[in-house]
């Protein structure tokens, strides 16, 4: 198992390197259209060939990874903080506060998120930049994705509040913020970490799904999701294996996250 974990770490380090140095690794840029050679095969000039509009696929893959692999962890962090706050408060306070928080959680769990995201996209100002648009998409994902995690955190916090050491801490005069900081948070850390790691691939795939509907990142900015749209006609694909690379990258990166997640769970 150690070798698998090591491989996962190497993959994620390579991905991080690729997204950090995308400008240097793909000097052609992601938006330049080489109109004389649309849908070109892989070559020395275009390592993964060109897309329908003649744009360098290699450059688009690197910049697409930058968009998806930067914003998905940020959205995951956002969602974990929200889940920790709502779930933690519900579990700590109990009573009507818990009932209210659970009502809120149930409400968010029952929201048809795809419809909501389409609506958010529709009401956005039209002249926002593609970068701002993708940031809004991931923020929306973060805002909508916390509810399931909050329920788990609430349950964990509630169990902790019944535990012997919390009773003893209370008896010793600990309460409020001190009790949360010293006893609840350290014991919920494993669950929070697990929620964070789970959310990253979920958000990457959610953006990919939105991209597949044409409602993800605005042109010409690429994302893993928008690159996957090219595979929509997979049933008719000619033998062009390099076109499958965005899918392979997505699977490998998410699998690497999952491998590390398993490790985190074991530690927790």
């Amino acid at each position, binding site marked *: 198992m150690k070798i698998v974990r090591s491989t996962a770490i190497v993959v994620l380090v390579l991905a991080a390197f690729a997204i950090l140095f995308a400008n240097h690794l793909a000097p052609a840029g992601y*938006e330049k*259209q080489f*109109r004389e050679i*649309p849908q070109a095969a892989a070559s020395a000039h275009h390592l993964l060939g060109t897309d*329908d*509009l*003649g744009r360098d696929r290699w450059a688009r893959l690197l910049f697409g990874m930058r968009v998806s692999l930067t914003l998905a962890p940020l959205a995951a962090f956002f969602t974990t903080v929200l889940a920790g706050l709502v779930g933690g408060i519900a579990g700590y306070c109990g009573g009507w506060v818990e009932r209210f928080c659970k009502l809120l959680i149930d409400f968010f769990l029952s929201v048809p998120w795809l419809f909501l995201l*389409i609506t958010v*996209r*529709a009401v956005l100002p*039209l*002249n*926002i*930049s*593609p970068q701002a648009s993708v940031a809004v998409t991931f923020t929306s994902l973060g805002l909508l994705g916390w509810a399931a995690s909050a329920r788990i955190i609430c349950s964990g916090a509630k169990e902790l509040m019944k535990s012997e050491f919390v009773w003893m801490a209370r008896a010793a005069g600990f309460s409020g913020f001190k009790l949360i900081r010293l006893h609840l948070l350290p014991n919920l850390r494993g669950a929070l970490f697990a929620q964070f790691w789970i959310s990253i691939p979920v958000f990457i795939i959610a953006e990919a799904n939105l991209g597949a*509907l*044409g*409602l993800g990142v*605005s*042109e*010409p900015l690429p994302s893993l999701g928008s690159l996957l*749209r090219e595979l*929509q*006609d997979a*049933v*008719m694909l*000619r033998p062009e294996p390099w076109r499958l690379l965005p899918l392979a990258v997505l699977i490998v990166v998410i699998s690497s996250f999952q491998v590390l997640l398993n490790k985190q769970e074991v530690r927790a």
Partner: protein
Amino acid sequence: MKRLQVLPVMLLLGCTTLLAQSGGELRFCLRSEPKTFNPLLVEDDASETVRYLTGGVLVRVNRVTLKPQPQLASEWKVSDGGKRIRFKLREGLKYSDGTPFSTADVAYTIAQLMDPALHSSTGDAFRSGEGKAETRIVSANVVEISFPAPVANLVDLFDTVAIMSAKSPQKEMATLGPFYVAERKAGSYLLLKRNPYYWKKDSAGRQLPYLDSIRLDIEQNPEIEAMRYKRGEVHLINTVSPAIFEKLSGDSASVRDAGASTDTEQLWFNQVPNAPIPAYKREWFSSTNFRRAISEAINRADLARIVFHGHAIPSVGIVSPSNTAWFNSNLKPHPYDTASALRRLQQDGFHLQGDTLRDRAGNAVEFSIVTNAGNRARESMATMIQQDLKKIGIKVNVVTLDFNSLLERMTQTFNYEACLLGFQKVDLDPNGQMAVWLSSADNHQWNPSQKTPATPWEAEIDKLMKAQAASGDQHKRKQYWDRVQQIEWEQEPFIYLVNKDALVAIAPTVKNTEPSVFSPQTFWNVETLALAQSH
């Protein structure tokens, strides 16, 4: 002896021909469930397909020659400058359920069609003026229809009027066309069977249609439709996307490019006076120089070559060159010329500051183009236009919206700057364009429902459109319509981009096909289509 040897070969050939011309089930796909089986209420493509295959019409327009051909009516005569038409009907015809066909059915259909309460868009085309249309039964097989005002292109309009039975208990399901709807499974398929009473015979005296049945599978996904075509599960694809066309061509399947269609793809700027956009942008969009400059900065040839894989031509204007009867051949496509575009912009006070184009007041020129999400061709065109306009310092934001949101912005809130969409033009006559070109019309997209024309050129178009609609003289109508095309070319309220080719796929087993660029491209001559049988 030799004769005896030749005989089996002749018999075999004869049998093959006979087999190719009898029976079998033709299969193809509909993109959605038909919304209605009432032929007078047809608005969607699926219902239109069913109407075409089942409905009996007085006159049918040949999709290759574009000439009207006799169907239920053997003769007709237009009089009073297009206000009156007299049909002589064929005798002894029956509906698919055996109900006899008579002049009363024509009168019943016209009464239904012109009933304002029915809200028939087919009927709208006949509404030329205030007053009622009247049908007079002249004799057992002659019927005369009068309209309150001349109706342009009157004969061809009857191509879409399927004659319903006044007496049949099956109502609209009793048909006079080559097929009738025999079976239907919602969301899955429709089965049409040969109308046993269909009146038409081939030159050898055999009753048409040759096919026993047509199965229409409901399949929304064109990729899956293409796969099914490749597997031989469906015989026809009426409109193939350029990408699928290329892939099917590679497999030597029988795909055909029938030439430039009448469909258009166009870009337009929002010129609605109270639209929630900055006033300085409205000023840009209302400027002819600005619109012409944008038009000249777009490389239409690249759009046709890259987005449509060469299966499109740069647009000239409203009318596609394939519509030979109405196209103004004096017009040529707008040239791709960025230098000329910049000159035009300079005339309006725009200037380049570094890589950014600015207007007189110093505002950077930036606007968004909205289009419908999921339409890959339009998204690609918008992205290419974004790149083209960057060359003259204009920043374009491409926004894809779900279709309902897009429609709401286009027709209700007018909260958009530029829009890229396409129009399917089924009606080749300029009358079919009235709802777009009259300044008072709802579909006058760049500035709809005007109380009075906002510009002198829109006022001129209004006059010309009304004049052509009221005229019974085809030559004059052509002159009026040519002038409308000329004005549109000069003003470019719509920046026409490309005319897509009509791309079709027809399995080699389907015989007697004659694909047309006009809808329905592959099966317009369905009664003579036949399937070659391998045994």
